[in-house]
C-alpha cells in the first residue's frame, strides 16, 4: 500500500534500521504519502480512513482544511495505534521534515506497542472502525438519518463517562449477590459447645444480626457499588432498542480505544521527541539540514509563556530521568545529601539512564510519570510556575514557584485526565427507577449549561428522571431533570457528595 517515492523509501529504510539499532521495538510501520486534503480528512476521522457517518467529522474537516488553506496551521505528523502502524506524510514537505516525522513516528510506534496502558487496545482498529461504519450505515438505511444521527449526538454527549483506569481490567460485570442471610454471617464459629454462650451471647447475636440485615438491605441497592463506567451500565440496563444498544456499544468501544492516548499524551510526545532528536542529530541529518532541523524542533518544543506544551515537558523529563539514572541521582543517599555543592557534582557513573527510560515508557502514564519524576531541581531548572487569574487586573500572573504547588497543580490537571469523575450511585433512586449520579467534586464546578443539556440527553437514554448531586458555588445541591423540568434542589446533609476517594 505504501506509495513513497524512491528517495523517501530509501530514507525510510535507513531510519527504520537506526530506530531498531536504538532498541526501539515497534510493529511494522507503513508510511503513506498524501496531500493536504487527504490529511485533513484522515485527521478529522481521528487518523482512520473510514468512520461512521456523522456531521462532527465534517465540522472537524471543515476547520482543518480551512485553517490549512489560510496558512494558520499544518499537520505534520499523524500515526495510529494499530498493527501494522499507519503513519501519514504530507506531500510537499521538505525532505528534512519528512525524515523528522519518520523518526518521530517510530518513537510513537514503539510507545504504542510497549506502554502497558495500550496493551488492551484493539490493534485491528482500522477494521473495527470500518465495521462500526457499516453497522451505523445499516441503521441509517433502516431507521433514517435524522433518527440515528440524533441518537449518536446523545451518545457522544455521554462519551466521556467511562472508567479510564479500567482499561487494564476485564470488562465490568454487574454481579448480583444472594440476598439470603446465612447464620454464619452473625454467629461466630464455636469449637467447644460449652463456650457458646460466652462467645455468642444472645443479645450480641441479636445486635449482629440486625447489623447484617441492614447491610444486606443496603446491598439490595442497585448498583451495589457506585459505577464509573456509566456507558457500560446504560448498555446493560437502559431500555434501549437493539440498534440503539449497538450504537452505544460502538461509541463506548471507540472511547476506550482513544482513552490511553489521552492518558499518556505528555509521555508519548516526550518519548517520540526524545528519539527523533536523538536519531536526527546523531545519525540522520546531513550538514545542510541542521539549521532547518533546529528551527523545526525548537518550534515543536517551544513553550509559550504561561503555556503547557506536552512535547516540551515530556522530552525534558525524559532527558532528566536519563541524566539522573546515569549519574545515580536517586535513592536514599541522594535524597539525604544536604550538601548542594556535592549534589551539583554528583556522578556515580551508573549509566543506567537508557534502561530506566525504557522502563518508564513501559509502565507509567502521565499521572504517575509526573508524580514520580517531577523534582524540585527540574522545576527550578525549567523555570516552572503556577499562574493564577488576578481578578482585579483580569490578567494572568505568576502565583508561586513553590515546588509542591506546581506539582499538585499539574497532578490536579491530569487527575482523571481532565475529565470530571461522575458515578452512578443508585439506579433505583427513591424506589422509582430514577438515576442518581454523584459528581466527585475536587474543587471545580461543572459547567452549568452543559450539565443541563447532558442530563437531558441522559434522560432520553434512561427514560426516567435523572438526578445529579454535586457542589455548585460551594453549596451541595442536587440537579434534577424529570423529562419536562430542570430543577435545582437543596440537599440534606447526609446526601452530600463524598470527597475525593
Amino acid at each position, binding site marked *: 500500500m505504501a506509495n513513497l517515492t524512491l528517495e523517501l523509501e530509501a530514507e525510510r529504510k535507513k531510519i527504520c534500521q537506526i530506530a531498531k539499532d536504538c532498541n526501539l521495538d515497534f510493529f511494522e510501520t507503513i508510511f503513506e504519502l498524501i496531500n493536504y486534503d487527504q490529511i485533513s480528512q484522515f485527521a478529522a476521522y481521528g487518523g482512520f480512513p473510514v468512520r461512521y457517518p456523522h456531521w462532527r467529522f465534517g465540522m472537524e474537516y471543515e476547520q482543518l482544511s480551512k485553517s490549512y488553506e489560510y496558512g494558520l496551521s499544518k499537520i505534520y505528523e499523524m500515526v495510529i495505534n494499530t498493527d501494522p502502524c499507519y503513519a501519514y506524510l504530507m506531500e510537499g514537505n521538505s525532505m528534512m521534515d519528512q525524515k523528522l516525522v519518520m523518526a518521530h513516528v517510530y518513537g510513537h510506534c514503539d510507545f504504542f506497542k510497549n506502554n502497558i496502558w495500550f496493551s488492551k487496545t484493539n490493534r485491528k482498529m482500522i477494521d473495527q472502525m470500518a465495521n462500526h461504519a457499516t453497522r451505523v450505515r445499516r441503521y441509517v438505511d433502516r431507521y433514517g438519518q435524522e433518527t440515528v444521527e440524533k441518537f449518536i449526538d446523545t451518545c457522544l454527549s455521554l462519551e466521556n463517562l467511562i472508567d479510564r483506569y479500567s482499561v487494564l481490567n476485564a470488562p465490568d460485570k454487574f454481579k448480583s449477590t444472594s440476598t439470603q442471610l446465612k447464620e454464619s454471617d452473625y454467629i461466630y464459629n464455636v469449637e467447644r459447645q460449652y463456650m457458646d454462650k460466652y462467645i455468642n451471647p444472645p443479645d450480641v447475636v441479636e445486635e449482629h444480626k440486625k447489623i447484617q440485615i441492614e447491610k444486606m438491605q443496603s446491598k439490595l441497592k442497585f448498583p451495589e457499588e457506585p459505577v464509573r463506567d456509566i456507558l457500560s451500565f446504560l448498555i446493560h440496563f437502559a431500555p434501549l432498542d437493539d440498534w440503539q444498544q449497538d450504537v452505544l456499544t460502538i461509541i463506548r468501544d471507540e472511547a476506550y480505544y482513544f482513552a490511553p492516548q489521552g492518558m499518556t499524551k505528555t509521555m508519548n510526545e516526550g518519548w517520540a521527541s526524545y528519539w527523533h532528536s536523538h536519531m536526527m542529530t546523531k545519525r540522520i541529518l546531513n550538514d545542510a539540514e541542521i539549521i532547518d532541523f533546529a528551527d523545526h524542533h525548537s518550534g515543536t518544543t517551544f513553550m509559550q509563556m504561561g503555556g503547557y506544551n506536552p512535547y516540551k515537558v515530556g522530552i525534558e523529563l525524559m532527558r532528566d530521568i536519563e541524566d539522573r539514572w546515569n549519574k545515580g541521582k536517586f535513592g536514599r543517599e541522594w535524597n539525604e545529601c544536604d550538601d548542594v555543592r556535592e549534589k551539583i557534582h554528583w556522578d556515580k557513573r551508573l549509566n543506567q539512564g537508557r534502561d530506566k527510560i525504557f522502563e518508564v515508557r513501559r509502565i507509567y502514564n502521565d499521572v504517575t510519570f509526573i508524580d514520580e519524576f517531577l523534582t524540585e531541581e527540574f522545576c527550578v531548572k525549567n523555570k*516552572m510556575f503556577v*499562574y493564577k487569574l488576578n481578578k482585579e487586573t483580569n490578567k494572568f500572573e505568576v502565583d508561586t514557584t513553590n515546588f509542591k504547588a506546581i506539582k499538585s497543580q499539574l497532578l490536579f490537571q491530569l487527575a482523571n485526565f481532565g475529565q470530571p469523575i461522575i458515578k452512578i450511585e443508585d439506579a433505583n433512586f427513591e424506589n422509582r427507577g430514577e438515576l442518581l449520579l454523584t459528581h466527585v467534586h475536587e474543587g471545580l464546578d461543572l459547567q452549568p449549561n452543559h450539565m443541563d443539556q447532558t442530563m437531558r440527553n441522559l434522560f432520553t437514554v434512561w427514560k426516567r428522571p435523572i438526578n445529579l448531586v454535586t457542589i455548585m458555588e460551594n453549596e451541595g445541591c442536587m440537579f434534577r431533570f424529570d423529562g419536562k423540568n430542570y430543577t435545582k434542589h437543596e440537599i440534606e446533609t447526609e446526601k452530600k457528595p463524598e470527597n475525593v476517594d
Partner: protein
Amino acid sequence: MSIREDQNRFKNIVKGKVREEFKRFVTQGELIGKREDEYVKIPIPKIDIPTFRFGPKQNEQGVGQGDGDNSGQPQQGQGQSGSGQGEAGEAPGEHLLEVEISLEELAEILGEKLQLPNIQPRGTSQLVTEKNKYSGIAPVGPEGLRKFKQTYKKALARYISSGTYNPDDPKIIPIRRDYQYRTVKKTQSPHTKAVVIYMMDVSGSMGEEQKEIVRLESFWINTWLTKHYKGLETRFIIHDAAAKEVSEDVFFKTSESGGTLISSAYKLCQQMILEDYPTSEWNIYPFHFSDGDNWSGEDTRLCLQLIKDFFLPNVNVFSYGQVESKYGSGQFLKDLQKEFLEDERITLSQIESRDKILDSIKDFLGKGK
C-alpha cells in the same frame, strides 16, 4: 470521499441554525462585511456536543513555564489553557466558525421567515427573449443525442401493449422506431431588468446608527431582489440641500451637515430614470431613507407633486423608510401618509430601531411588487 457527506450534513445543520437565529443575524449586520461575490460568510458559534465538563474556573489557574520572577513582582503569564490534556485544556469560550452560505439561500431563508410573496415583475409581456434549449424529443436525430431512458420506456410500452412482455424474463430490446433523440426547442422567457435607486438623507441629523440601519435594510432588499431579477442594478444618491450620485462605498460612509431638501434627490432620481432606464423595459425600485425632516413645507409639496406625477405611474413601487433620530421631526412621513395612505404603489415604513428592521423589510417587500 465520505467526508464530503459529513461535511454537507454539517453545513445543513449550520443552515438550520441560521434559520433559527435569523433575527439576530439580520439586526447585527455581521454578515455584510463578509460578502464575497456569491457567498456570505456567516460566523456561527462552534456547534458543541454537551458533556459533563469542568466550568470556566478551570482556566484561572495552571502551570506555566518561562521567566517567572521568583522574588520580585509577579510577572504576567499568558492566559493559555492550563493542561493541554485531552479536551480539558481547551478554552471554554465560544469558538467562532465561519460558514459560507450563498446569497440565493440567504434570500430563500429571508423569504421563508417573512413569508414574502414572489415579486411579480411589471410588464412581463412586453419583453421576451428566445432561447434554444435541448429539452424537446424527436424520433430522429444524431446518435450522440439519443436518450436511452426514453428509448427504453418506449420499447417497454411497445412490449407491454403487444403482450410480449414477460416479467420473469424482462428482456427489452428497442428497435428503430423506439429510438428517441434530444432536440432543440425554442423557449420564450420574459426578459426582466431591474434597477434599485437608493436615496439617503445625509444631513446633520442622520447619525451613525441611522445609517447602519439603512445599510442593513439595503443589504436585505438587494438580496431579495437579486433573487428575482438577474443582473440587478443599483444606484445611490445622497442628499442634503443638494443631491449627487455616489458609489456604494461613499453612500454608507458620507456624513454631511446642513439642511435638507428632499426634492433635490427626487429630481436627480427622476433625471436618472429618464436618461438610463426607459420605463417600458425596466422594473424600477426607488427607495428613500430619511429621518423625516424637510427644510420647508413648500419643498415637501414639491416632493409630493413629483411622487404623484412622475414616480407612481412609472415605477414598480416607491418606498420611503423613515429612520427615527433624535433630531428629526418625522414630519415627512406624516405628509406622505396624508396624501397617499390608500395608494398601493407607495410603501411607507417607520424604523424605530434595529429590532424593527425585519418588520420594515416585510413592509417594503410584502406586497410582492
